[in-house]
């Protein structure tokens, strides 16, 4: 006769209510883990999107994401001619706010040269950019549809393609557009401002400026070797893809990552305490029944089984409900929530340990109960 199961069945509503409370707590923990993962993965999507091996940026900088970088647009030709470089392309990055359909959209504009490295590798819908001007590929998160026309600068751009999960480290959805248009948006002054600059006799900056040049290498060519060659030019800096990814996670999103990480750790500690309290209270409420069991001759293992099995059932059901809840709502979060199976399994492991530890407190109390407690009023 499984006493734990019978007790749960007898108090099913109460058990489920407790499980629900616990599952909400688990859902919060899992959400935080997902948000943490999402933050790291989001930070890397833009860097990984073009599928390149080397990033060439302004000398003395670690651009274009961690620091600002501006280099001449013709750098691409020099890089493309290097031994071991299969192809190279110029790219620009900037944020922009546009008002479309009555809503303000914050976008991350990525300028690239169609047909060269820098474009996203895979489209979720539509086609790649076919014209040299006024076409864009937008991330689905921007809320744009194929055929939509949005204003950028003084021109309107048509959405011809859609990509998925392409955001910058701040979570702004990416919009890919032809390099020339991106350069105009980033570097060209508005006519009145340009006239003022000319009147002042100031040097007008060349519009053929880019933030970085990305290079794809031939097979079996080490990115470090090419990056080292570029660094010897002195007027440029070069980072391998691995350097760039490391820079983003260890620098750009590091503070946010640690913030969420610490919050997650606190949440886990709070959950552990709550689980322990629930299980301990559940045991305390049963002390008279436990005393009766001892008095009628139930061995310790029966009493331990009653407590530990209920604790594990509570933890297991709370974890499962929490996981289901997060999987159901994760797509409604403003930023990406990424839950890997290993995260859910790790949390299950932690809950298992917490349940065992918490029930050991209850077991200790139960084993101390004097069977004589069952006698009398």
């Amino acid at each position, binding site marked *: *006769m499984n*006493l734990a199961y*019978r*007790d749960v*069945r*007898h*108090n099913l509503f109460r058990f489920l209510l407790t499980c629900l409370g616990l599952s909400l707590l688990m859902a919060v923990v899992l959400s935080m883990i997902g948000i943490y993962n999402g933050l790291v993965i989001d930070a890397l999507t833009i860097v990984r999107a073009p599928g390149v091996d080397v990033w060439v940026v302004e000398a003395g900088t670690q651009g274009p994401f961690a620091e600002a970088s501006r280099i001449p647009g013709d750098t691409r030709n020099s890089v493309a001619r290097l031994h071991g470089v299969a192809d190279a392309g110029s790219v620009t990055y900037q944020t922009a706010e546009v008002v479309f359909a009555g809503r303000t959209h914050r976008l991350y504009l990525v300028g690239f040269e169609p047909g060269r490295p820098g474009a996203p590798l895979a489209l979720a819908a539509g086609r790649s950019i076919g014209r040299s001007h006024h076409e864009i590929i937008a991330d689905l998160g921007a809320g744009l549809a194929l055929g939509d026309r949005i204003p950028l600068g003084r021109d309107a751009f048509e959405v011809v393609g859609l990509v998925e999960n392409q955001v910058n480290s701040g979570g702004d959805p990416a919009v890919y557009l032809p390099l020339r248009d991106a350069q105009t948006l980033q570097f060209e002054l508005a006519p009145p401002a340009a006239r003022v600059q000319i009147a002042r006799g100031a040097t007008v900056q060349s519009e053929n400026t880019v933030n970085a040049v990305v290079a794809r290498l031939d097979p079996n060519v080490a990115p470090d070797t090419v990056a080292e060659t570029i660094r010897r030019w002195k007027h440029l800096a070069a980072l391998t893809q691995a350097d760039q990814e490391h820079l983003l996670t260890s620098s750009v999103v590091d503070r946010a990552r640690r913030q969420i990480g610490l919050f997650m750790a606190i949440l886990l500690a709070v959950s552990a305490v709550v689980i322990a309290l629930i299980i301990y209270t559940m045991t305390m409420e049963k002390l*008279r*029944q436990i005393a*009766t*069991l*001892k*008095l*009628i*001759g*139930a*061995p310790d293992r*029966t009493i331990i089984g009653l407590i530990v099995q209920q604790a594990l059932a509570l933890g297991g059901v709370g974890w499962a409900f929490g996981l289901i809840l997060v999987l159901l709502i994760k797509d409604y979060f403003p930023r990406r929530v990424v839950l890997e199976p290993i995260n859910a399994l790790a949390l299950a492991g932690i809950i298992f340990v917490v349940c065992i530890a918490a029930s050991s407190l209850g077991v200790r109390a139960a084993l101390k109960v*004097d*069977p*004589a407690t*069952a*006698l*009398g*009023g």
Partner: protein
Amino acid sequence: MGPATREALVEIADISKHFGEGETRVDALRQVSLSVQAGEVVALLGPSGSGKTTLLNVMGCILEPDGGRMRLDGEMVYENRWLRGDLRRLRLDKIGFIFQFHNLLPFLDATDNVALVLQLAGRDRVTARSRALELLEYLEVGNRRDSMPANLSGGEAQRVAIARALANRPRIILADEPTAALDSHRAGIVMDLLRKLAAEQDACIIAVTHDEKIYARFDRIFHLRDGRLEFQEGETT
């Protein structure tokens, strides 16, 4: 079995027990000796603090005495080295408990409350339930076999509790205020039932009670005061 040949199921001699030390020392039992034979129904009586419950706990192997000897159903308890598991086994096999407030497990129905004791003693589920049903029928609560304790009346619950106490055919039944929660009519029925069980199962029943209505239904009454056995009413059967 005639009265002369009746075996003593409970024999205690010079049992003493104290709680606390120094100024707070309380001698709950002082050199108490008594013997209860098979088929007897006896009561422990006395004012509050006289040592009735302590004596019941000692006889129930819940409380280890400081000194004295105790033989339960032929077994010398605490002689040599007794472990907690040995006491548990003794309680399971030889002693049945009846409580003031039945103490049925609220999450088991009437049948399983009785069957649990049998399963703890090693019977399989089918055998345990079969014996449990037999006992419930015998105690005339067979019709409530599937009822949860919360749905039983006080008298029904006490009968189920008695069935549980009898499940392993113990020869010593200890009852703590078995009729306190019942009206006089039901109390009388329960006492008659206990007397019938003692006779039929050749067991002894030792009850702590304050219920004057049922005094007449005991074979003997042991009066305790300040931890001492003051006197007894009635003769050994």
